[in-house]
């Protein structure tokens, strides 16, 4: 696995040459699905305008589909980068499309690192744009629920990164105001680990804060959900 040789990024002497978003988009179009990881990562950090975003999104989506099962670390880092950018830019009403990335049984299991990125970004999107109506993407919520069921098993939850994935999946289900939210919330009650319940409960408090000025309906719904609070929260 090749890693960057940068020892201290701020020590470089050479002047940085600006590259415009248009040039980056052109480079990505030409490279297609063989785009180098560094290009994808640079794209993630660049802001694109309203005309460029519709061109960028299908390129990122294809890159994600083509490389999500890679076992090369650098490629997975780039896929994570593409996932974050894609989800942060995609139209909110098309988020159901993401369910395909969480389907079990596709060629090989999705790396846990990518599942974390997907669940996290779903949560963040709905944190910023609360759903106008409850349960906007039931199939996506179902895929997240499958993650919750698999990863909150006490034998799994303590393993590296699974608790991060499980907590983010619960947060995402709740942020979508899914019909599965109450079940997800009750899962915490059944979990033998107090820290996990506290972790999710704290994150829901932050969601309430984020929604407080944007979505009175959403806040009322969260309050009702929290009335079913797990005993140890």
């Amino acid at each position, binding site marked *: 696995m090749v890693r960057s040789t940068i020892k201290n990024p701020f020590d470089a002497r050479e002047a940085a040459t*600006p590259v415009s978003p248009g040039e980056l988009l052109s480079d990505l179009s030409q490279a297609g699905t063989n785009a180098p990881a560094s290009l994808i990562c640079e794209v993630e950090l660049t802001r694109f305008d309203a005309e460029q975003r519709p061109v960028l999104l299908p390129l990122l989506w294809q890159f994600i589909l083509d490389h999500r099962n890679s076992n090369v670390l650098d490629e997975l880092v780039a896929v994570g980068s593409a996932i974050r950018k894609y989800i942060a*830019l995609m139209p909110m009403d098309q988020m159901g499309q993401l369910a395909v990335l969480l389907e079990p049984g596709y060629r090989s299991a999705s790396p846990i690192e990518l599942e974390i990125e997907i669940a996290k970004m779903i949560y963040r999107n709905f944190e*910023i744009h609360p759903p106008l109506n409850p349960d906007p993407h039931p199939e996506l919520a179902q895929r997240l629920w499958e993650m919750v069921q698999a990863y909150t098993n006490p034998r799994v939850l303590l393993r590296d990164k699974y608790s991060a994935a499980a907590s983010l999946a619960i947060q995402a289900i709740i942020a979508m105001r899914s019909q599965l939210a109450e079940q997800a919330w009750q899962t915490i009650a059944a979990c033998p680990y107090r820290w996990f319940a506290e972790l999710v409960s704290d994150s829901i408090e932050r969601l309430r804060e984020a929604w407080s000025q944007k979505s009175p309906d959403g806040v009322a719904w969260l309050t009702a959900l929290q009335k079913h609070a797990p005993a140890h929260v």
Partner: protein
Amino acid sequence: MFEFAGFHVPSFRIDTPSVSLNVFDVIGQDGEQPGFISHTGLAENEGSQETQQIKILDMGPPLHGPSYTTTINASALGRAELSDDETRKIRIFIDQHASEHHAFQQLNERQVLRLASEMYCIYPHAAPLLEHDGRYTRIRFSCSGFVFEAYRSAGINLLNPDALPLIDMAVIKMAYPLEARLMESARVTPDSLGLRGIGPWPVLLCGYLLHALNRSATSIRDRAYTPITKDQRFTAEDAGA
């Protein structure tokens, strides 16, 4: 000063070739001036380690998470005697954020220089990198902000970020010498790092964290520390005070 009930060790200067660590101890490194803490991170492993090469998780930049750890020549150490639950919450916080920053390991120097302010911020200590409509792909941290937020995720509010001393550009240059060079060469603007106007700014400095931890384990959890200007430094006189 030892708190025997919990065997709590307050923050201390490290003046030995090796030091015994707990996971996620807060490690501080002096800048050019001895005692002025200019970098901080979290100890990755427990056990005895060489002081000059302690493995840490830190906001370099880029953020060095698990499997991308870096080493630090440690000058000081702060310890909260974390419980297993607190340790786990900090680990989850790192797992949730580290991959956002792994991407930077893919960039070459030219790209990193150009995109420095997309990775890192000085003020506030943590800030999302926003897209056009307010959505975000990552949280940027300062090095002290990363440590502060990691502990906060475990329910430990080390200090009050809304009551920080104001510091001017001269102190910024001591605390962030590399970023200062980038600003001087106009490669990044102070604005892009969060330093708007002519200052001074209430920036969260690394030394404050060591002072916050230089209290009893109970105080650390019960009451957020309010730093004062001289807490920029953490000297032998401060240790155990």
